[in-house]
């Protein structure tokens, strides 16, 4: 059995799966149930200035009959009294001392307010703080949340205020509503943050009611941009995480990965790109806390299969595999191959290649089943047919190098090699 415990800046948890700052972590009753279910830690829903929430708050994007591929919310930070939250945090820590208790914060934009809030939270015995620089709605109008995260200068200032006061580890949570997360990440690290977490939610409109013409979620005939999350945002989150892991400044601090993590596989992907822990919200909101069971078991089995003893054995392992386009090997060439014994003659590869790619599939008419074969000379090895094929391993990509040596774009150009081969 592999050891799946995590050590994040000295904050220990029995597994790297934390619940992100959100409704599942907003009160004692939820958090205790989460700990009972096996979650390694929680980031308590953001504490800060007093707010008032609206109804409704969520909307979703479904895809081909599958519910909540993407999820969106317009809920604000915790709307419960601060004292109540602080008392409950303390009680949860006492009942589950082995779990990570991080508290998310978003104070009014003054040094004094931040200091005051940090002191109050540290009194609970919490293990760490997470600065919410990412909330994309409601708080921004008041100069908080994403407004801070979107301006590296402001972020740097606030982190400096926080670091003057904090005695426990500080994680700065980044907003994805920027062209790059690196500038704010860098400013935060330079200002002293102990760690980074990302991503917060992405501004979105999930859909529009075609009868009322009002976008979702509906609030008395109006709507606002909400924060998008769930499986749909995972690829974006992974990319942003990778840029933080690649940067020489931001890669110095540990990272807690967030954004569409639903399974142990998703979690492993975040960890391979540099996350020490992952935070989950949408999947838990959809299925409940029980999903952590398979996350732990799946991670454990995978680590055993791969021969990893601890999670540090593979954190960041995929980062070196991401390079610049101009470093890619132009001589590497693959062509599709259709296994005729597995082919079910659905024609999806054909029409995709014909209309959407390089017209590299032959169609031989039959009644009722057509036969499809690859025109190897035409195939550019784009993967489209393989991605579309509904049968496992029916279409495989076979390596047919253009030349033995590695040659990248720069070299290719220097040698004046021919372009436009298609």
């Amino acid at each position: 059995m592999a050891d799946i415990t995590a050590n994040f800046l000295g904050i220990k948890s029995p597994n790297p799966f934390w619940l992100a700052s959100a409704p599942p972590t907003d009160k004692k009753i939820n958090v205790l149930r989460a700990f009972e279910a096996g979650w390694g830690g929680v980031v308590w829903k953001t504490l800060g200035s007093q707010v008032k929430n609206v109804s409704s708050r969520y909307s979703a994007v479904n895809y081909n009959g599958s519910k909540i591929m993407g999820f969106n919310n317009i809920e604000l930070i915790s709307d419960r009294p601060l004292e109540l939250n602080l008392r409950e945090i303390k009680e949860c820590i006492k009942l589950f001392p082995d779990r990570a208790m991080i508290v998310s914060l978003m104070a009014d934009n003054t040094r004094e307010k931040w200091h005051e809030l940090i002191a109050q939270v540290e009194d609970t015995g919490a293990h760490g703080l997470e600065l919410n620089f990412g909330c994309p709605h409601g708080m921004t109008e008041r100069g908080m949340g994403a407004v801070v995260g979107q301006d590296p200068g402001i972020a740097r200032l606030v982190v400096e205020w926080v670091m003057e006061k904090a005695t426990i580890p500080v994680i700065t949570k980044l907003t994805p509503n920027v062209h790059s997360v690196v500038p704010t990440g860098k400013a935060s690290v330079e200002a002293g943050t102990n760690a980074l977490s990302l991503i917060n939610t992405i501004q979105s409109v999930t859909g529009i009611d075609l009868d009322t013409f009002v976008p979702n979620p509906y609030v008395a005939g109006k709507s606002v941009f909400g924060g998008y999350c769930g499986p749909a945002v995972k690829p974006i989150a992974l990319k942003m995480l990778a840029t933080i892991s690649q940067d020489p400044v931001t890669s110095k601090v540990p990272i807690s990965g967030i954004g569409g993590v639903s399974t142990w596989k998703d979690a492993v992907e975040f960890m391979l790109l540099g996350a020490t822990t992952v935070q989950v919200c949408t999947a838990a909101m959809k299925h409940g806390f029980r999903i952590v069971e398979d996350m732990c078991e799946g991670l454990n089995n995978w680590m055993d299969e791969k021969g990893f003893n601890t999670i540090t054995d593979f954190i960041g392992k995929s980062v070196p595999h991401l390079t610049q386009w101009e470093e890619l090997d132009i001589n590497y060439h693959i062509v599709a191959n259709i296994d005729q014994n597995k082919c079910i003659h659905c024609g999806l590869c054909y029409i995709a290649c014909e209309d959407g790619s390089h017209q590299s599939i032959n169609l031989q008419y039959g009644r009722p089943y057509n036969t499809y074969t690859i025109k190897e000379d035409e195939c550019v090895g784009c993967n489209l047919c393989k991605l579309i094929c509904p049968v496992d391993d029916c279409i495989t990509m076979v390596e047919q190098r253009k030349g033995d040596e590695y040659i990248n774009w720069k070299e290719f150009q220097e040698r004046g090699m021919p372009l436009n081969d298609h």
Partner: protein
Amino acid sequence: MPIKSNRLTASAYEQNFSDIHPPFDSRESALVEANRCLFCYDAPCIKSCPTEINIPKFIKQISTDNVKGSAHTIFVSNIMGAGCSRVCPVEKLCEGSCVYNLMEETPISIARLQRYATEQALEKKWKLFERKPSAGKKVAIVGAGPAGLSCAHVLSREGIDVTIYEKESKGGGLMTYGIAAYKVTPAFCEEEVKYITSVGGIDIKYNQELGKHITLAELQKSYDAVYLGFGVGLARQLNIPGEELEGVVDAIRFIYEIRSGTYDKVPVGDKVVVIGMGMTAIDAATQAKRLGAKEVTLAYRRTQEEMPCTETELNIAKLDGCRIIWLAAPAMIKGENGKVTQLVCNLMQLGEPDASGRRSPIESGEQFILEADMVIKAAGQIPFEELVNNNQLQHAHGKIVSQKNGSTNIPGVFAGGDCVNGGKEVVDAVQAGKVGAAAILEYVAGL
């Protein structure tokens, strides 16, 4: 061993004849199935449908909540798409060639999805077709069955004024009178005919039989063209001793009675033997059982390999508790006091393949006896040879000889459906009607 009616309670009849393929009970369940469809390109299911309904398209339209568009996609190829969704032997047509079969997965429930879309069209009376302005041409159609209605709908859409002459008091043909009641109800058939004719320009004159109330010559005189779609209907005789005994009925007549009256009025025996193994034989056997017969036996002179019905149909009979006897050919019907008591069968064995390519049954010399008080003959239907002959139509053993486009040896007279092919599926007749209509449009345009 009496033959009697009113064997069951009203609720038992209702249960026995309730929908054998119930529809989706909600939009959600239809969507789950619609979303399974791979949306194949040049899809095998389309090629396996005689009317070539664009199946992936109509299923996709269900999944996008464009049910109106879905119904239009179905009806533009098959105006009886609602009825076909209930009666088509889809296991050997569209669903039989669904690519999921090749993955050892359950094929898409195409018929059920088709029913989902078309049923809403009928219920909500969606007007999916506009009639073109009158072209000033008139066409007479004989028979308001699938071929005739399909032909009429295409013609009417193109602005032709159509009059259909139907010998029965209701339209729908074999859909209304010749198919098991647990597949389609007479009420549904009536609704379907109403929906088809709601496009306008189609006048159905009921109780008008060709050769009795009207003649082909009169129709030719009064109309620009004539389409014959009067089907088949005569049951093939067994030509064995005892066929005249009381208790020997033909399946067409038996099913007709079930379809045209109430279940409690249809008499059925205690021990029923059905001869044949086609779709009609199955429909007769299962309905005899469902009417309260104690024992129903299907006797067929060949084996399961050669049977004309599909395995799905055979399984309905088996699940209904019908006994199946293979290699049994009727030799003689015995009776007492003029009533059937026994069926004597020749035990057959398979010989060389015949013209149909199936191994032919030959007598083994052995005989056996089945106790029976009712014998239902379902050994095929024969065409109206005399009618065809009397009207100087070229024919082959009573089946009208027509060209690919439906034209006959008489200029301006077209034919299609069972009266040409000798008896196929409803969907084949619908296609024949479409093809005939195209030829008629070309013909009347040249007048």
